[in-house]
């Protein structure tokens, strides 16, 4: 089968509502694991998503499909998965199936990974630059961010030539923009404004003081 056509950018597909639900399940999953003394809950989830779910698309479609009853799905989990995984994880999958949230399992995995990073004092930082970063500047940025923001940054780099130069760093919703493109835009705006003011005041010198 050919690759699916992409009609929208990735981030648009992230439904904020689904994201919130996934976050709730992920945190509950980790808390439950902690309370029950299950040590490698996150590893199990990751391996399930990347090795079972992603590689058996037929299996995934059965679990996600609305056409198959919950009982059948639960039976499938009992027969195919339960013998090969921990009872705790099988239970988690069953809860997801019962609540009709099994389709969110990939997003839950994402959130679990993020929470684990948070617990380890790490945070994802997006870096956009005009050119690929050199190793030197990468470690410099990492050091600086660590010093300023107080956590270990996990850099996610991307290259945008339209920035011309400089960097845009995004941590969560906050953007630190020191790109040449933005600076030039700011300068252009200010120059236009000042020049217009000069021209207008030059013109006002000749206009009638009492209006037309």
């Amino acid at each position: 089968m050919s690759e699916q056509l992409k009609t929208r950018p990735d981030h648009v597909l992230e439904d904020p509502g689904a994201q919130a639900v996934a976050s709730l399940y992920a945190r509950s999953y980790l808390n439950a694991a902690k309370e029950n003394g299950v040590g490698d809950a996150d590893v199990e989830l990751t391996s399930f998503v990347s090795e079972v779910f992603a590689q058996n698309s037929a299996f995934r479609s059965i679990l996600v499909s609305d056409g198959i009853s919950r009982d059948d799905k639960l039976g499938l989990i009992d027969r195919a998965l339960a013998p090969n995984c921990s009872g705790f994880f099988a239970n988690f999958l069953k809860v997801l199936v019962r609540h009709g949230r099994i389709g969110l399992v990939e997003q839950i995995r994402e959130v679990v990974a993020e929470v684990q990073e948070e617990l380890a004092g790490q945070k994802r930082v997006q870096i956009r630059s005009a050119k690929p970063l050199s190793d030197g500047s990468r470690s410099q940025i990492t050091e600086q961010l660590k010093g300023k923001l107080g956590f270990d940054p996990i850099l996610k780099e991307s290259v945008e030539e339209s920035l011309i130069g400089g960097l845009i760093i995004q941590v969560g919703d906050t953007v630190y923009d020191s790109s040449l493109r933005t600076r030039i835009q700011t300068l252009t705006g200010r120059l236009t404004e000042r020049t217009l003011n000069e021209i207008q005041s030059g013109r006002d010198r000749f206009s009638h003081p009492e209006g037309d």
Partner: protein
Amino acid sequence: MKFKADEIASVIQKEIEDFRGQIETAEVGRVIEVGDGIARCTGLSTAMAGEMLEFPGGIRGLTFNLEENSVGVVILGDYLKITEGDEVKSTGALLSVPVGDAMLGRVVDPLGNPMDGKGVIMTSDTRPVEHEAVGVAGRQPVKVPLQTGIKAIDSMTPIGRGQRELIIGDRKTGKTAVALDTILNQKGTGVKCVYVACGQRLTSVAGVVEVLREHGALDYTIVVASSSADPAPMQYIAPYSGAAMAEYFMYNGEDTLVVYDDLSKQAIAYRQLSLLMRRPPGREAFPGDVFYCHSRLLERAVKLSDELGGGSMTALPIIETLEGEVSAYIPTNVISITDGQIYLDPDLFWKGIRPAINVGISVSRVGGNAQTKAMKKIAGSLRLDLAAFRELEAFAQLGTELDAATQQQLDRGYCMVELLKQAQYEPLHVADQVIVIYAGAKGYFDNVPVAEVQATEKKLLNFIQTEHADTRDKLFEAAELTSEVEEALKSALEAFNARQASA
């Protein structure tokens, strides 16, 4: 003229030298859904309600809904240029518009951008569009009259500075004309005016601007225009921006007049926004807070206390009714908010009684406080006399024979109705109004045939202005009908009648 290129070049050079690129920090989000003038965005976790946002290309937005996982934004500009996935920046500032003396004489859109092709507006002052109204302690009673120049209004439903008087009526009954005449009459009084066109046709707006310009009223007026072709968010914020522009003058101790033409269209724009934002609809599908939408706007009209400079903002909201239905949702809301209403009646309009003010149901809750002493004295009984006349007129239609006294009362009534008619764009000074109404009420017009009353009125004013200017000047200055002035006026009127009889 020649621009001094060197000057400009040096300004540019200095600007570049002084430019220190700083790291711009901003809270961002992404557009997940856009259309119909609104957008839904994720991120923006610290956005405030009413905060100004910036879309790519400098298009501005206004935070409208703060939801659990997303933010509803109204787009103030061309929403067709925004696409899903675009980055939205928060600015940390509330939506504000430019204000100041430079705005006078200009036609601007609700964001304060010039629309009249007269170049940029040179002002550095801004005011937030949404601003809290002054509290009780900051106000004082409405006492100073705001003369509309319209006889029927100044005599029977007087408007004071700081009052909110609703102009209500069906379509094509002269609502805008009343408001425009009021603006024209503020010439030379120092009252700054703001005319807010909300959801109007652009031809009407152009017509209004032309009238203002022709009569020299544009010099003290700001026109805020949002046409029916503008997106709903622009129509929604237009009255608030107009109020902000007037507030600047008000807090500088000046008197201002704001006309909102009209608020029913604003309510419809607000309904559209709210429904698109999935706020639950209420009566007539308006959202629950449409009352607050108008009350918070009109509450900004105020007469400030002397400690705050004593400035004032008089508001003349306009509401269009359908088939005279004043008990519809929006009309009842605005009637209950304002300090009185001027009701324009289509039947009167087509009978030729223009301005078509229905005296019976038009009221001003401020009343006589907002009249000059002279006007108060002569107009005190006018409303009752007219009411008695209407009753008598209905009775006389039965065709019964009337005694002489009743017939005379009827004739005087017809004469007064005729005297209260007034042509458009011809506001009268209050002293002239006093002379005319005094003459009518005291029977100096009794011998004039009804068809000639208006022409005779013109002659009378002309006669007094040219031959008894001192009497008129006294009325002008004292604004009081002392016995001395009254005597002078009586003799002038008798002289006029004698002149008429001999002619």
